[in-house]
C-alpha cells in the first residue's frame, strides 16, 4: 500500500474558479441593488404569495434601498470581467480536454441519483467515478450553463432594441428579466449547496482547490 499525489485541479481551473468568486459576488450584489427598484417577484401558490423577493427588512438589513445608480455602475463594469473570465474558462475546458471530467453522459443521471441517495445516507452504494461523481458533473455543467444563461438573458434586457431578436426568442423583455432574476436565485442556491458539500467533504478536498493536488491511496504498482 502506497500513496501518490494526484494533480486534481489544474492551475488554470483554480485561478479561474477563485477569480470567478468575487466577480459573481459583485454581479449578484449589484443585481440586488438594481432589482430593489422594481422588486416584483415572488413564489406563488395559486393566489397566495408564499415568499416575496425580498421582504423590506431584508433590503433594509443589507442597506440596499435607493442605490439603483450605483448598482448599474457596478453591474455594467463587472459584467465584462465576469463574462471574460467565463469565456476563458470555457475555452480552457475545451482546449485542455478538462471538459471530460465535468460533462455528464446520459447514464450519469441514474448514477447521480445513487450519489444523492448515498449523500442522504439512504444507500451505501457509491457509483464508480473519476475526479468528480456524476452528481457533481451535472451540477458543474449546469452552473456553467447558468452563467451562459445569465449573460444571454442579461444582454436581452440590456439592449432590448439592438438585440430585439434575442429578447423575442426569450419571450420578450419581461420574461427575459424574470429568467435573469431566477438564474441569480439558482446561483445563490448552488453556492449554498456547494459550501455545504465542501464542508462535508473536508479539509483535504478544500486544500486541493488551492494546491491542485490530493493524496490518493493506491495498491497498484508504480509502473504498469
Amino acid at each position: 500500500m502506497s500513496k501518490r499525489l494526484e494533480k486534481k485541479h489544474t492551475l488554470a481551473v483554480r485561478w479561474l474558479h477563485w477569480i470567478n468568486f468575487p466577480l459573481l459576488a459583485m454581479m449578484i450584489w449589484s443585481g440586488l441593488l438594481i432589482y430593489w427598484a422594481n422588486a416584483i417577484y415572488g413564489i406563488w401558490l395559486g393566489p397566495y404569495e408564499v415568499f416575496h423577493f425580498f421582504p423590506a427588512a431584508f433590503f433594509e438589513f443589507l442597506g440596499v434601498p435607493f442605490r439603483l445608480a450605483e448598482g448599474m455602475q457596478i453591474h455594467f463594469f463587472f459584467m465584462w470581467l465576469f463574462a471574460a473570465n467565463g469565456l476563458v474558462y470555457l475555452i480552457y475546458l475545451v482546449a485542455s480536454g478538462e471538459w471530460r471530467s465535468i460533462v455528464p453522459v446520459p447514464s450519469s443521471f441514474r448514477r447521480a441519483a445513487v450519489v444523492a441517495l448515498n449523500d442522504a445516507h439512504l444507500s451505501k452504494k457509491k457509483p464508480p467515478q473519476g475526479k468528480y461523481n456524476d452528481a457533481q458533473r451535472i451540477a458543474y455543467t449546469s452552473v456553467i450553463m447558468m452563467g451562459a444563461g445569465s449573460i444571454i438573458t442579461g444582454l436581452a434586457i440590456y439592449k432590448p432594441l439592438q438585440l430585439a431578436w434575442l429578447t423575442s426568442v426569450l419571450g420578450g423583455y419581461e420574461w427575459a428579466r424574470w429568467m435573469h432574476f431566477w438564474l441569480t436565485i439558482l446561483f445563490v442556491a448552488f453556492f449554498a449547496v456547494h459550501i455545504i458539500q465542501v464542508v462535508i467533504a473536508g479539509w483535504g478536498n478544500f486544500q486541493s482547490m488551492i494546491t491542485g493536488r490530493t493524496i490518493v491511496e493506491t495498491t497498484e504498482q508504480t509502473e504498469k
Partner: protein
Amino acid sequence: MSKDKKILVEKVREFERRTGRNVDAWPEDPQNTASILNERRTLSESLTDEEARSRMSGHSRRGFLVAGLSAMAGIVGWKSLSDEAKAALYNRWFGLNERVSQALYRPSRLAPEFDRSQISPTRVNGAIGMEQDLDFSSWRLAVGGLADRTDDLMLTLDDVRRLPRVEMTTEMKCIEGWSVIVNWAGARFSDFVATYPPMRIAEELPPYVSIATPDAGYFVGWDTPSIMHPQTLLAYEMNGEPLKAEHGAPLRIASTTKYGIKLIKRIGRIEFTAERPRDYWAESGYDWYSGH
C-alpha cells in the same frame, strides 16, 4: 482494447516515462463516466506516507501563501480606492460601454411593435420640471442650433402636427426595471429634423441634442443616432388621446431607443449642439447614454 489503441497507449506511457509525467486513464468501466469520456488523471510516482505528507505540505504552504497574498492584494487594492475614484472608474466605464454600443448600433434595427389590445394600464413616474401648471395657449417649442440662424425658432404644436403623423405601439422601459406597452402618435424626430434642418458641423448633423422642460427643471441629452431612429417620436398623443398633463402635454419624447428617463415630458426647448449636453439623471450617477 484494439491492438492499435494498445500500441498508442503504450507509446503515450513511454513518452510520459521519458518526460517524467504520469498520466493515467481511469480503468475501463462502462459504469464510470470518467472512463466513458476518457478522462485523464496525472499521478505522482508511488510515495511512502511520509513523502506524500511532506510533499503535500510543501504544495499547501506555497498554495495558501499565493492564495492569501492574491486575496489580500485584491481586497486592499479595492478598499484603497476612494468612493470618488470608484465613481470615476464606473463613469469612464459607462463611456466605454457607450462606445461599444454605438459601434454596434444599427438604425435599421427596430423594437417589436404590439397590438393595440396589448396596451398596459398607464403608469405615471416622475414630474420633475412639471411642478408648475403650464399655460398651453402661450406654450411654444423653442428650437436652437438650426441652420442659418442664431436665435431660437419658436414653433406651435400645430407646426409639429403638420409633420407626417406616425403611430407606434411599443414597450416603454423604465430604468427601475418595469415596462409598459403604450400607443404613441406624433412626428418622427427625423422628419422634424428634415423640416427644420439643424446647423451642419463638417457636413454632418451635430452629434448631440439637448432637450429641456420650459422651466429647465428637467433636461436630457441625446446622441444624434438614437434620436434619429425611426422609433423616436415627438409625441402629442398617447393611447388614442391627446397627451395628458401628467404624461407630458403638450409634447414629449417617445422612443424605443432609451430608458424612460430620457423620454422627457413637456418639452420646452430643443437644441442641436456639438457639446455633450447635461443630463438630469446622469448627474446622479446614471448612465448618460442609457441606450437600448
